[in-house]
């Protein structure tokens, strides 16, 4: 009975216009070329014009070079065509739109400025894998250095660079790990839309992120980022040119996430099909929207604080320099005003995806749907009031310690709701033990530890002991690796068949799960011990006291790497050799499973009309 929805892709759409034009030849490669050309021009010009006796000479050159790279990349890939076309009043025809959506262009469209939300989704998958891969390699470098006391693998200079770039890469990767691929690939289909609200902005948000990621990785080549990922001023004013690349990358990244957030919210609010009321929305759509809204609040602060750091370095302003009336605490405030909400921008989409998976895999409705939405919204709301708990030991406004302790610990209530919904959905369910289910249970196990260790740290007397130690590192790695990454992989395994038409290899996937799960426990439990013993973070070399716990942590880290490599192998082999899955492998009810696989351009030939939410498993017989 879904046949009315599965007419062949684009059968009834206007034929793609075969017009030539330079704009239609642009792709990733021309983007890179443009980036390098303009980067070089900017470098040469700034090199020539700025006064090389000034302290900020090298920073000015680096900054302008990175601006040149950005501009050139956007020009080269075609990001600036749209605005220019608008300016001169030559709007796209329907044929143009279909062309830029990649109609009948085969695989090459994955390397172009493509406006099709499904293409963007896949591009985000690759993007995330690259970032996680690079960041993971750096983590291995860090752990190899820390396998024993003393500096042997890399010296402290390289180490200091690695920890910061690893941190930033991973944060960026996890921000887009779930929201990137799935809020683009499946969210519009879940809403019954033919694409995102603003397809070109969608492509823009991806490719700006790509250009920023290039800069972030390039920091390693220009003296790296020896400041720690929180780039706490004023040491940032001592760092080399890598800091300029980093700041510029973050400025662009903030714009990218803002654009993506606007797109997500507008899509959900204005593109829903007939009958898709807000109370019938799949929970993942709600999660993505809440996270997007939170990101809209958070990332402007990131944008500003990195702009200020850039000015401090290039223009010798005094925002964070005491000699000119600046203050490192200002940077800490602005950074954490972004930094804490950002944690939930990362967490909420992963949790929402798990709600979705839990419901489908246990053949039950999401347990207390409204409470779940309330929990996510409450978490988002609270998270903007807790930033100073990252500053308990900085000495800034000790009198505010109490209030911030209160808001911070209140967070455990909405967090508890997540467990209520997840476990409540599974309870008495008929749990289908497929790959996504495994990673979901892994999430539950790890997220408990992450949450409870967080309660210790929110208590100021305890924080005075643990702040800045490996205990904190272990805590947020349980959040990011143990919880968010597990959620992201569950989502990947869950929607992978929709992208490729094939299952993610079950056997390899389970091997990967057990390796990663064991690895996470070994690595971060031992890291908790290092923290309890009193080992501070970001130490390139440490006392014999911490010898054994660090060795165990390194062993665990390599176990995680093994697990991740197996998963990567599974991803790549299954992509074209995996077992065929058909359009709806999990027999789910939400709309993305109603369309053929892979979904045609513009998803629906006929927009469906919705009469209930997608969770009515037990209520009406599922006719197949």
């Amino acid at each position, binding site marked *: 009975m879904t046949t009315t929805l599965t007419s062949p892709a684009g059968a009834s759409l206007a034929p793609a216009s075969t017009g030539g034009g330079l704009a239609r030849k642009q792709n990733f490669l021309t983007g890179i070329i443009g980036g390098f050309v303009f980067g070089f021009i900017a470098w040469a010009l700034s090199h020539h014009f700025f006064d090389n006796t000034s302290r900020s000479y090298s920073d000015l050159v680096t900054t302008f070079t990175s601006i040149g790279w950005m501009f050139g990349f956007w020009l080269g890939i075609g990001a600036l065509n749209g605005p220019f076309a608008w300016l001169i009043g030559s709007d796209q025809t329907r044929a143009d739109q279909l062309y830029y959506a990649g109609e009948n262009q085969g*695989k090459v469209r994955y390397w172009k400025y493509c406006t099709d939300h499904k293409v963007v989704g896949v591009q985000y998958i690759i993007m995330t*894998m690259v970032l996680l*891969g690079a960041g993971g390699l750096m983590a291995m470098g860090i752990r190899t250095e820390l396998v024993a*006391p003393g500096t042997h693998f890399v010296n402290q200079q390289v180490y200091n660079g690695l920890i910061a770039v690893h941190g930033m890469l991973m944060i960026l990767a996890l921000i887009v790990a779930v929201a990137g691929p799935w809020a683009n690939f499946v969210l519009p289909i879940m809403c019954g839309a033919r694409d995102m609200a603003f397809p070109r902005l969608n492509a823009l948000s991806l490719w700006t992120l790509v250009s920023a990621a290039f800069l972030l990785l390039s920091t*390693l080549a220009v003296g790296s980022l020896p400041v720690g990922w929180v780039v706490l001023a004023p040491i940032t*004013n001592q760092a080399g040119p890598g800091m300029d690349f980093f700041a510029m990358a973050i400025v662009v990244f903030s714009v990218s996430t803002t654009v993506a957030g606007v797109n997500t919210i507008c899509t959900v609010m204005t593109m829903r099909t007939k009958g898709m009321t807000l109370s019938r929305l799949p929970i993942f759509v709600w999660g993505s929207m809440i996270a997007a809204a939170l990101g809209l609040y958070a990332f402007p602060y990131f944008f500003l604080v990195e702009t200020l750091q850039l000015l401090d370095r290039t223009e010798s302003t005094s925002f964070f320099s005491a000699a000119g009336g600046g203050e490192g605490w200002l940077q800490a405030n602005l950074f954490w005003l972004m930094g804490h909400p950002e944690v939930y921008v990362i967490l909420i989409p992963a949790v929402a995806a798990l709600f979705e998976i839990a419901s489908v895999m246990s053949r039950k409705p999401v347990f207390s749907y409204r409470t779940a939405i309330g929990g996510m919204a409450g978490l988002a709301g609270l998270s903007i009031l807790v930033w100073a708990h990252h500053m308990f030991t900085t000495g800034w406004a000790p009198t505010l310690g109490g209030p911030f302790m209160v808001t911070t610990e209140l967070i455990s209530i909405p967090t508890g709701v997540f467990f209520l919904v997840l476990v409540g959905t599974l309870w008495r369910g008929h749990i289908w033990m497929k790959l996504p289910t495994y990673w979901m249970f892994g999430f539950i196990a790890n997220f408990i530890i992450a949450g409870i260790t967080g309660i210790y740290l929110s208590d100021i007397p305890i924080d005075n002991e643990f702040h800045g130690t490996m205990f904190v590192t272990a805590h947020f790695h349980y959040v990011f690796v143990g919880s968010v990454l597990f959620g992201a992989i569950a989502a990947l395994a869950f929607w992978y068949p929709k992208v490729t038409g094939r299952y993610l290899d079950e056997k390899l996937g389970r091997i990967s799960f057990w390796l990663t799960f064991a690895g996470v426990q070994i690595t971060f439990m031992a890291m908790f011990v290092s923290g309890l013993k009193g080992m501070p973070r970001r130490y390139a070399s440490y006392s014999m006291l911490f010898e054994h716990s660090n060795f165990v942590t390194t062993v665990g880290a390599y176990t995680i790497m093994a697990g991740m490599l197996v998963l*990567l192998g599974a991803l*790549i082999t299954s*992509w*074209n050799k995996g077992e065929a899955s058909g359009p709806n492998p999990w027999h789910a009810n939400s709309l993305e499973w109603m369309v053929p696989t892979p979904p045609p351009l513009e998803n629906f030939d006929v927009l469906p009309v919705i009469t209930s939410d997608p969770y009515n498993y037990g209520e009406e017989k599922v006719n197949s």
Partner: protein
Amino acid sequence: MSRIRTLGVAAGSVLLGAALLTGVGVWLADASPHQTALKCQQVSSGVCSLNLSTFPDSLEGVHGANGGPHPDWVSYSNDNIDVPANTTVNVTIDQYDSGGSLNNAFFDRVMGTIGGTATIDGKTVSQVDPTNVGHTFTLRGIPGNGSSIFVSVPLPADGNSGTPVTIGGGSYAKPVVVQFSFKTGSKGVYEWNCEYPCGGSREGQFGEAMSTFGYMSGTLTVE
């Protein structure tokens, strides 16, 4: 399925690219040249001597041709030093650089040497003028690794003029000669660096040469 195969390959190759980029980055960041460690010359049983120099530039020492990427950065003649355990180390440092005020006057004292004194141009002192220091030699270890050690000797600024001497690529006025001795304990790796703000950046001038390995810092290995 050709599209999908290409995608898989693409993902793999892009990852490989990221790996390469990371590797290259690490290698570049690590490119600060590693010179062979300076051995402490045996003088008599239980006594050995070290000769170090500090320069206003990087033309001397191993920083690459013509001073490498930053010929104008200040530098020590060596970074890594090997000394035998339980030995008296006689250190002689030729200080060729100008100077100014310390960030923290704490470092104007001679600390941790035998007798708590050093000999500067033949004069025995335990403290120097904190507003006219060129560099310092400050050595410390990580408690718990080997025996704890702390040596800090200020090297006064070089006010000498007259016929310049030529060393390596540069020529400098007659140096200030600082001599001191300290006893090494059990085996272990210790860290030494300069505590005079000569890094030529903002916030305490501890950037650039001061925060780059192989210029104003190094390791002292007791073996």
